[in-house]
């Protein structure tokens, strides 16, 4: 028996954090990258002649999508149908209730899990009987302990697989919280998890893990992305990673760059297979000029212009070094540090961001990540004023 465990394809999801300087050709590639990755997965299913395909939620990036995306999905699933490969699909927190909205009818080979935990059984061509248990989100949050509704392993089947979109957590957490012990207690042969975009194994045997998403969506989702091709080996289900990355996100740390030429030389020396989107962090000793050019964007423009088309620098940052700290003058450093913490802790965003400002901005800058970004920006400002 052979099947695919995939999740979080987030079809139609744009790349976050790009600016408008990106070349048109690359932009078009970016727009279709989630679709390309998905198509690779389908092609992989056909090539490997798998018995079925599992999709553990977040097929779409949102409940809202478009004709093109739906037609695409339909075509891809029909490719599987032609090869008699069934698809077992559940919705996650992003595409919850996707089929309740305007949606094309699914091809016959697609089985969508409902809100309630249900089990679908099939007999694969090799004669083995497989039970697949899963559920779909009906809201962006699933706070109930859904795992309690999962039946224990059915004795009459050769394999039982759990299809689960959620995260480890305690009751009341938003994304169908579960514990590894809770899953193990069901005695399933494989838990195909979705939701976390980083590929990871929570338990070796029986396998409990995330296949990760098919394509990185922002600069934090670095590294190769793809799905698991799972093969039965003496009654054990062994996943093997298969890449579908269309555009690779990479973070590159460059220490002590002297000039832009030096920086460009180091970047072009990096091995490149698929188009790569870099986040570059400059560390170590930076000259005043390098810092200035980094801050005013000249350096970024220069690097972008110098690199080949399949290498794009999304962001160029400097790691704040401890040595640089805060201004030291009549006002003591401890006051600056205390004041910064105080300001960031007690910030009242509504005072600055009126209601016309989109919510996501407020949300972001209230998040730890956003606050960190603000902290860095503020430090840069103060340092610039000081100098």
């Amino acid at each position: 028996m052979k099947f695919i465990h995939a999740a979080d394809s987030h079809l139609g999801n744009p790349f976050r954090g790009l600016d408008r300087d990106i070349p048109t050709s690359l932009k078009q590639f970016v727009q279709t990258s989630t679709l390309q990755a998905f198509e690779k997965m389908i092609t992989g299913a056909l090539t490997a002649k798998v018995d079925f395909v599992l999709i553990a939620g977040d097929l779409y990036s949102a409940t809202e999508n478009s004709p093109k995306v739906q037609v695409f999905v339909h075509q891809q699933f029909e490719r599987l149908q032609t090869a008699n490969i069934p698809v077992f699909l559940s919705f996650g927190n992003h595409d919850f209730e996707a089929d309740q909205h305007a949606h094309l009818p699914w091809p016959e080979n697609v089985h969508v899990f409902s809100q309630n935990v249900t089990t679908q059984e099939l007999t694969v061509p090799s004669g083995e009987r497989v039970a697949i248990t899963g559920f779909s989100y009906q809201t962006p949050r699933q706070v109930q302990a859904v795992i309690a509704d999962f039946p224990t392993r059915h004795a009459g089947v050769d394999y039982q697989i759990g299809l689960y979109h959620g995260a480890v957590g305690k009751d009341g957490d938003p994304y169908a919280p579960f514990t590894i012990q809770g899953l193990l207690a069901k005695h399933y042969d494989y838990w195909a998890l979705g939701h976390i975009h980083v590929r990871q194994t929570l338990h070796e045997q029986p396998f409990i893990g995330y296949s990760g998403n098919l394509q990185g969506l922002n600069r934090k989702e670095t590294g190769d992305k793809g799905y698991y091709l799972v093969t039965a080996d003496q009654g054990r289900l062994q996943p093997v990673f298969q890449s579908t990355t269309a555009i690779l996100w990479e973070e590159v740390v460059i220490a002590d760059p002297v000039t832009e030429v030096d920086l460009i030389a180091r970047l072009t020396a990096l091995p490149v297979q698929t188009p790569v989107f870099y986040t570059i962090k400059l560390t170590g000793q930076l000259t005043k000029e390098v810092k200035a050019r980094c801050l005013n964007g000249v350096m970024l423009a220069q690097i972008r212009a110098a690199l080949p088309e399949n290498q794009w620098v999304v962001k160029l940052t400097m790691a704040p070094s401890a040595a640089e700290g805060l201004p030291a003058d009549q006002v003591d450093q401890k006051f600056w540090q205390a004041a910064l913490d105080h300001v960031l802790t007690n910030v009242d965003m509504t005072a600055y961001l009126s209601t016309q400002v989109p919510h996501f901005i407020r949300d972001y800058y209230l998040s730890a990540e956003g606050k960190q970004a603000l902290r860095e920006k503020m430090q840069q400002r103060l340092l610039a004023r000081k100098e």
Partner: protein
Amino acid sequence: MKIKQVAISGFGRWSKQTFDLTTQMQVIQGQNESGKSTLRAFIVGVLFGFPNKKGRTNVYDPRDGSRYGGSLTVVFGDQTVKITRLGRTQSHLTITDLADQSEILHPEAWLAEQLAPLNQDSFDAIFNFSQQDLAAITQIKGADLQKLLLNIGAVGSAGWLNVASGLDKQADKQFAQRPTGKRPLNLATKHYAETAALVHEKALTLPDFVQGEKALMADKAEVVAAQKTVVTLAAQVKNHEQLLQQYDLYVKAAALKAELSNTPQSVSDDDWLAVQSQAATMTMHETALQTLNQAQTPQVGHVSSDTFEFETALAQAQLEVQSLQKQFAQRDDWLKTQQQLGAQFEQGTIPPPLSAQEKQQLTRRGPAMLWLMASLVVGVLGFLVAKPAVLLASIPAGIAYWQYQQHQRQVEQILVAYNGLTINEVLNLQNALKQQPLRKQKLAELNVTISDQQSALLRRLKPIASHFDVPLQLSDLPKLVVELQHRYEQQKLTAQHDILKLTQQQQQRVEEIAYHQQQLDQLRQAQRQIFARYQVNEMAELTARRQNDLTTQRQQARYQDLMRQLDPKTLAQFQQDTDRQTLQQALAQLQAQLSVAQQRVFDHQATLSNHQAQQAQLTSNDQFLTLQQDMADEQAALLDQFGDYLADKLTVNWINQALQFASQNRFPKMQQLATKYFDHLTQGRYQRITFSETELLVTRQDQQTFQVFELSTGTQEQLYIALRLALSQVIGDIVAVPLLIDDGFVNFDPQRKETMVTMLQALAHTQQIIYFTTQWPHATSNNVIKL
């Protein structure tokens, strides 16, 4: 700092007026319009600069034309100076140290330094207030107060405050809080909202698309259904066409069957073969008979007649040959004689005999008589030999006559002819000569006879010789005859043998003929029997019958073939009550239905392709992915820009906060002090002042908390004054300037007013207070200036 004297040159309603002030609490009392506010404005103007003429601001131009401005005598610590500021638009500041009357250099800077960190704003905010300012209490915020304190409290904060102010301005250029703002971030936000709306709007078209797709499926189903109908109908039409064709076949088959039923008995193959064989055998016998009949008689008959002819002819020829041999002997005899005669003459030429005339001439006797006698002889001879030769007699007679005539002349001539012979010899010879012509004639005649006989003989022998293939030879006729006879005998023998043989053959043939005839008869008998069986008389008829049989067989086969093409069910149907017209009508009806159904397919297909085009349009026009990415890009840009904006704004906060911390927390102290004053002023009714982010709260003794606007006007004013006093006190270690209070306690009840006055008087020990009021009912008198 304390103000000892106010000397006005010209300012508003005041000119050339001097006021000496106490350095503790100075009350300035006057009715409305008495110039209290003008005086206060003058003090502020000298310290911080006169007001510029802007808008409706009162600039206090002197009413009576006195020189604008005046001076203050002020004590800074242990230094007493006179600050003189003259002229409004181009005001001139001089500061004179009263200790030595020296003028201070750079008076503006010096004065600013003395007043630092106060500027007019902060001075007004802390030390200078009026009834109107009290109303602003509802607007007051902790942060403003904090800032105010920082301005004064944190050492070296001015630079950082400038930085903060710069950042604040920079941030404000980027974004305005009001929704109608036109600054870059406002515009970007608006644009983003539009993009988001567009994305949302596009998403709303999805149901249409899905609906369209469902409609498309329905269209397809309809097309399929219609096509199915067409297929069914087409099959029916085809069936009916076949039915019609089968019907035609059926009709043909029926006709054939009828025809076949009328045909006579067919000639059986055995009979036909027998007849064929008989005919062949008969032909053989007939041919044999014919050959036998043709080959009869001729040879036998021919041989015998020939033989007879030849036998007679040859016998006769033998006789003729014997006769000829006699004649040949005669001729030889005669020729011998002639030759003897001829030998007497030269060259053998025998002269003719002398004519009678010649004889006469020679003998002198009438030769004519001689010729006459000769003529008689000739005549006789002629008559004897051959009658026609009689005529010859006339010739000598004639000649005799002619000879006589010529006698004389001719004697010589005659002698010439006799080659010198003498006349006697000539005359002796005349007898012989006279016989010569006769002999000659006889010889000639004999030759002719021989020749004739030979010719006749040859003529008769010729066919025989030819028969036996023997060459005809005149030279030896006898031999020829013998040869021929010999040949004849031989042939005769052969012929006799042949005849015998032929006779035998003939016998055999007759037998054969009889045999063949018998066979023929038998065959004819058999043939006649067969003919009788089919009621025909001759072969041709039977052949015709046979020919007919083939046609019939073909028809039979055709019939079978036709019948095979008809399935039993159809056949049964045809055999009942079908006719072609009914079938054709049904077909026409079906064809009409088919054409309608086909039209329906076309119509549905047209609708389908229309919908497909619309759907394809929707898909190809689908900007969702692009718009999403655009939106994400805009979000990224907005996050970044708002990050900058927030960083600017928060850096301002940060600077303020740092300065706050650095200014040793004057704010909490001020808060504490203000609470004390407020508590005091309200006779312990309110026990706490708290500052939230946005507002000021007071807590009553019963622990109820109120917002400022919930308080009575008087209490609000008391709160305000408590804060002002606290502020001025809390920075007292840095800067101490007089408090200027203009009609501050109008809404106070008497009791609170009393408390207030007491409190101010207590404060005035350390800080000069100049209090402007309309009424001063209190007992103190030394410190009241009445205007």
